[in-house]
């Protein structure tokens, strides 16, 4: 008897605590927290070589926030995206979506994870199966997640949202096949499909890099508008720094699987602290010939994630590198205590 009572009491206590904790969390706007995330691959034919695509990534994302991720090709941006939405499993580290571990979510209910985390892919021309009409693609997504009771209501939802994003006449788009649409239109539908599920956050992996410059803006605008409307957070992956700055609230700069610098978009772009960020930004030209740039020269080529140099991973190319840089691992540090994180102990010195 007593034991029973004890137990139920303990249960009550536990329940209480959990409730409390949840309340705290609910009040907190963080919907994504990533801690020391690692993703290592083995080469297909060289099984002993480890590819460290993600090598300890930490960040958090608040509701409705847009985090831009920039970096050179091969630095692990897409890998991060795939791991974040659970398309691939992380080698190590933790991803909490709405304070729930992604792996638990996946085990418990795969569909729910999908409803929380969505993705927009780089190549809009390949995002849809060309044999299936746009309307069917969108309604089947709704059906999959039990949104809308009848097929009629589902169709109405889809038509409404098509209209909302300006794909008019919506009935016409509903009936068309993917290969009958332009890249910009397809990418908008791709975003639309993700947003239909009202996710907590969306990973957009270079959503405009395959598009012509002349249509990029409409896609970016749409993404921003819809995210704002639904209060959805966005992880915007791109190597186009100007575009990222245009859309993102905060920017994280990645290099060889690590975040080198992170801060508000303006801060990072206008006053970069890490030598790598500086190099990256100074090398980005402007379409206006009046703004001539003075690029920061950097040696060598980006090393591959198969052999990351010891110490600071940028040390072998960094113009300011010292012996300490080459031997000591650096950590992300908020030197100015304004939320602007840098992974370089000499960050302040260079400025």
């Amino acid at each position, binding site marked *: 008897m007593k034991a029973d009572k004890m137990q139920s009491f303990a249960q009550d206590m536990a329940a209480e605590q959990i409730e409390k904790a949840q309340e705290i969390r609910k009040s907190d706007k963080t919907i994504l927290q990533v801690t020391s995330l690692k993703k290592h691959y083995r080469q297909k034919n060289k099984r002993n070589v480890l590819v460290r695509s993600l090598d300890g990534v930490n960040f958090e994302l608040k509701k409705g926030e847009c985090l831009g991720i920039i970096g*050179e*090709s091969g630095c692990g941006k897409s890998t991060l995206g795939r791991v974040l939405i659970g398309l691939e499993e992380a080698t190590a580290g933790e991803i909490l979506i709405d304070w729930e571990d992604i792996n638990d979510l996946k085990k418990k209910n795969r569909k729910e994870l999908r409803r929380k985390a969505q993705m927009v892919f780089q190549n809009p021309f390949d995002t849809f199966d060309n044999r299936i009409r746009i309307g069917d693609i969108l309604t089947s997504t709704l059906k999959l997640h039990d949104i809308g009771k009848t097929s009629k209501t589902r169709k109405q939802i889809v038509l409404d949202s098509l209209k909302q994003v300006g794909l008019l006449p919506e009935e016409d788009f509903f009936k068309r096949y993917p290969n009958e649409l*332009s890249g*910009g239109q397809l990418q908008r539908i791709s975003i639309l499909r993700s947003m239909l599920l009202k996710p907590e956050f969306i990973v957009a992996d270079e959503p405009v890099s395959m598009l*012509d*410059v*002349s*249509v*990029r*803006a*409409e*896609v*970016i*605008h749409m993404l921003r508008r819809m995210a704002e409307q639904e209060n959805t957070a966005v992880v915007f992956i791109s*190597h186009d*720094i*100007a*575009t990222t*700055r*245009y859309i993102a609230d905060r920017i994280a700069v990645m290099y060889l699987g690590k975040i080198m610098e992170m801060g508000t*978009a*303006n801060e990072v*772009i*206008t006053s970069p602290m890490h030598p790598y960020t500086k*190099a*990256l930004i100074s*090398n*980005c*030209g*402007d*379409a*206006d*010939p*009046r*703004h*001539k*740039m003075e*690029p920061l*020269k*950097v040696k060598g*080529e*980006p090393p591959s994630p198969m052999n990351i140099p010891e110490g600071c991973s940028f040390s072998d190319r960094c113009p300011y590198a010292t012996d300490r840089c080459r031997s000591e691992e650096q950590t992300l540090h908020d030197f100015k205590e304004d939320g602007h994180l840098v992974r370089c102990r000499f960050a302040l010195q260079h400025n």
Partner: protein
Amino acid sequence: MSILEIKDLSVSYLGDDYKVRAVDHVSLNIEEGESLGIVGESGSGKSTLMLGILRLLNERTSKTEGEALFRGNDLISMNKKELAKVRWSEISVVFQKAMNVFSPVHTIETFLSDIYKVHRPNAKRQEIRKELTDLLAMVNLPKQVLRMYPHELSGGMLQRTSIAMSLMFRPKILVLDEATTALDVITQNQILSEILEIEEKLHLTRVLITHDMSVVANFCKKIAVFYAGRLMEVGYVEDVLVHPRHPYTRDLVKSYPTFSEDGTGTVISIPGTMIDLKKAYTGCPYANRCDRATEQCRTDRPMEDQMDEHWSYYCHNPLQGGETDESR
């Protein structure tokens, strides 16, 4: 003095049941020692222009009309033998997909030597090796590269090798077709800067094909804007990009986000899509997307209008100087 004079050049791809006018009556003058950037959206005919001039297109499935005078000699009507002489020793190309530019089963040295021997058939091995080593040094590559296979090189190294290869006979004209697009910005800048240096040394005339306006803005003197196979506007970068006359140029510029001080300036998209080149049309190809389009734009083909000797555009309703900053 113009080194390459393109006169009324048209290139069509001939399918079984269609004909694509990929380059449509284009006239363009390239001065010796000048650097020209050709920009335009995907499918606007930039690559085709280059392939057409060098006659690298399949003669069964394409047709090239007009003239392309290299130092007064027409490349289009030239016989194969003369053409072979011009190719590479006078005009050379750097292609976009550097990975595929080299034969995968031959070493870089074999491949480069074979090309070397095309124009220097009697060259000795030693001589070739020395020449190749020098070439690689020019683009900051070690001579070890010679012994490697293409798959053993990184993208940047391949692109450098490709550039070295194009400089082999110190050509007069170097065409770079999206040569650096696939590379990341830092490497891209490195390579372009190196090219600028070499260019000065060798007195090259450079034609840079890209769709990245910022590259043209930073690395070229002149710019030619293409749209749907037609030349829209050509002139000095400072003129065209700052005070565009053609509405398309203006719209294109406005679709690029800039770093301008606060970075909050809006970017725009051009509504609609490019016309289908398989279908015949009259007037200006941009008329369906242009906010300044008039009835004339839809019916009559705009003829060349010149601001000055170096700046011309093809528009019935061009912008005047003050309208540049007008937003849509």
